[in-house]
């Protein structure tokens, strides 16, 4: 039986959360993974997500918000469809991370944590993403793009804008959903 009636999550995620809550010695230890999975599904950590996770883990909403606000990778407002995360830590900085960031800002017309008007891109300046060997590096959603220059960055952004981003499955759902919406 599901731990929460009328879950806001998909049945698969809800089932996953039911299990997550049982596998730690302390129930509340499941909070961080749950927040991440919830963000992946909903796009951000909404008030409804906070409320449901609090119920699932017998926490106060205040506790969930405390943890949520601690981690910069968790967000409480929707990001763009493609969240461009530019690293500016030491290796990337030495190899042009800031130039890359400035280029993205200029190109997309948004600043740090901004979202483009069409909701397609959002931009973030992030701490080290662990790709120092191939600096400067950028992470778009969960995909890495390495050894970038402003020109290469333009190509990456253009690919995403055209729906042909790295590792993007030629998903029929995206392709078919759009005409239906019209």
């Amino acid at each position: 039986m599901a731990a929460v009636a009328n879950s806001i999550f998909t049945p698969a995620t809800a089932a996953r959360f039911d299990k997550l809550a049982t596998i730690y010695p302390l129930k509340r230890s499941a909070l961080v993974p749950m927040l991440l999975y919830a963000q992946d599904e909903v796009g951000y950590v909404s008030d409804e997500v906070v409320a449901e996770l609090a119920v699932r883990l017998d926490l106060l909403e205040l506790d969930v918000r405390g943890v949520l606000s601690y981690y910069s990778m968790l967000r409480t407002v929707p990001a763009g469809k493609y969240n461009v995360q530019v690293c500016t830590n030491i290796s990337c900085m030495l190899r042009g991370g800031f130039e890359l960031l400035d280029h993205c800002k200029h190109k997309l017309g948004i600043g740090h944590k901004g979202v483009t008007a069409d909701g397609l891109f959002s931009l973030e300046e992030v701490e080290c993403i662990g790709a120092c060997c191939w600096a400067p590096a950028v992470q778009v959603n969960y995909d890495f793009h390495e050894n970038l220059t402003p020109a290469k960055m333009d190509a990456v952004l253009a690919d995403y804008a055209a729906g042909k981003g790295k590792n993007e499955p030629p998903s029929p759902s995206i392709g078919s959903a759009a005409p239906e919406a019209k």
Partner: protein
Amino acid sequence: MPDVTLTVDGNKITAPAGTLLIEACKTAGIEIPAFCYYPGLSLQAACRMCVVRIEKMPKLQTACTTPVAEGMVVQTETPEIAQARKATLQLLLGNHPLDCPVCDAGGECELQDMTFKYGAADSFYTEPKNHREEQKWSPVVYFDRPRCILCYRCVRMCGEGMDVFALGIQNRGSSSVIAPNVPAQLSPEDLPNLDCEQCGMCIDACPVGALTSGAYRYKTRPWEMNHVSTVCTHCGDGCKTTLGVRSVSDGSEIVRGDNRDKSGMNGDFLCNKGRYAFDFANNIERLTSPLVRKDGKLKPVSWDEALKFAGAKLRELRDSRGPQSLGVIGSNRTTNEENYLLQKFARTVLGTNNIDHHRTADYVTLATSIGATTRANGKTRYASQHCVETAPALLFIGGDPTNQAPLTAWNARTNVRLNKARVYIANHEEIKLRRQSKAAIQVSQFGYGALAQYLAGDDKAANATSTVEQADVLSSFREAIKAEDPLIVIVGNEVRGGELANLIKALPHAKFGLTADYVNSRGASDMGVLPDVLPGYQPLTGSTIASEYSVADKPGLDLLAMFDAAAAGDLAALYVVGSNPVKRYGIDPATLGKTFLIVQDLFLTETALLADVVFPAANLYEKSGSVTNSYGDVQLVAKAADKAGTRSDFELIVRLADHIGHDIRTLVPFGKGLRADMGQTRGAQSGEADRHAVWMTANNMEPKLSPFDPFAILDEIQRVVPGYDKLLRLQLLSGNDQNITPAATGLVQIENRKDLVLPSSDTLFTSGSLTRFSPMLQDVQRHQETEVSDHLAAD
């Protein structure tokens, strides 16, 4: 635990093993500064102010987390330590606004004190300070974010101390911020706010001015007030509250209530009402002139006219229609001396036993049921408030301490947290204290009588005890509490009469406390403001006091019977002191049409509106005397505020007796025995009064030169009221509490007594008739009503 010996700053000190170094030093008189450390709460070690040098340990160590050890050698003040503390202060002051001249905490701020001591006034930081606007979290709690030094005392106080968990920490590092439990986007006015018990403990714990009180902020400075430690007038727990008062054109007003003087039985604690609900005293609706009904309207008149009129009328009615046609209703909020005096007034001046008050607990049954019984070790069966804080096992039967007796709940929580006390609960509701309980049973609403029988061993009563099928739970519950010795039983006011008597009989090993609703509910009972009982629960015939009074031996009319008599036209006059029975008992105003009604109160209450004479009375914060809390702990009340135009109930009763034509020397034993020469104010003997006072204090005496001196009546109380005869006067004058136990024998025995206990069901934000005269309580009620959902942990 065995003691260990250590050396601090070259002095050998001893402390029990396991003591924290900071506490051991404090006991030895060595102060180690700390912002985050708070006695009784969990350790944080966040502020680094308490660093000390301990020999053989690398680096400086935090004294707040280091337990003492044998042979430890500690330095608490060296240039190295001063430098470390100075650096800490510089970091804290990096973004701390230097608005001390307007800050509420200025003058009593721990950060300010430390900055003075270690001189970190100049900052190395050139960045502009990061200012944030202050936030109003509730009508009584405001947050000034830049002043916060992130000690987390408030977070721990709210969670661990209050079990509310309404404050948390959000963000991280230097952006960390204390956050309330209702974020802006979920609150109606789009600002963060607090959904909590509004106790203000976070403000009390705050070492700086980050959390400030809505009732006090920006009103005055700490050194401009006089601070008077007295007893809170609201519930029956007997907390001490320190009132900050200052002069105004019509006396002195209360501007702050807090807990600076932590000497009371409440230790650190004060609830919403104790901290903020003093504002009724400053209400502009206070009566400040006597009123007499003329041509159907209440008109202000002089004191002389009002007293003469009331006195003459009472005398005339007493002589023409007989003492049995007169009635007196007393108060739950007047002092013991006033209660005693009032019943003496009724019984000797008016000559009637028709005296009663709004009863909120059945103390007569408590006294007569415990009677001469003792626990197996011969010790008393009356619990004190201190027992709740220290006893290894507590049993709560009925009541909801969190709302009705907040200190009892605080003490129980503290006892569980610090001493691992075992709490047992039998209640018909899911009270919040269940969260601390070891075992709890659900009793059906009228199942307390059956519970008493079940605890006494009657297994057949199990079904009536609870509507829930829980035979196993019940029996293990009974076994558990029978095995607890000593056991403190705190009984709510659902249980009274025969049920209470059975309960007391069923648990012969237990000590009992009975919670009542107001500051001196117990005192009103103890002092015999009852129709069938003399002070100290002595019978109307045969006791010393009865022979002194020569009262009628028939019980008088109780409160409801008085109104019945009034309806029948048999009650010629009614004298109501500090009570609002018309509202409380829903009395039809027409009932009192043929009764001459005298009311003395703070406000024009529903009862006062019907009166023929109204006297403006002083409240508990404006008089001295003593009060007795629910548990029988007697404490001194000190006069803090003053309101021109009002007089204490004590003075009013005496003056009324005088105007009736009674010899007040027989009412108040003043001016007898010791006569003080108060000396001269100028010249060679000008210090005489002071020296005289020293001598009298040393001999346990005070001058009673005036018929309005409550201590003259306290002398009589000590002389004739069993239990109160054991009061130590110096202890009382020192502000200490003393537990009173009624006499073991010779108490009144009443069969088939009417149950007239009417619980007032006050919450954290109501206090009887005073509620609507306290703007703060009104504000807080409105604030709590706007909360759309419950942000607290399941109660």
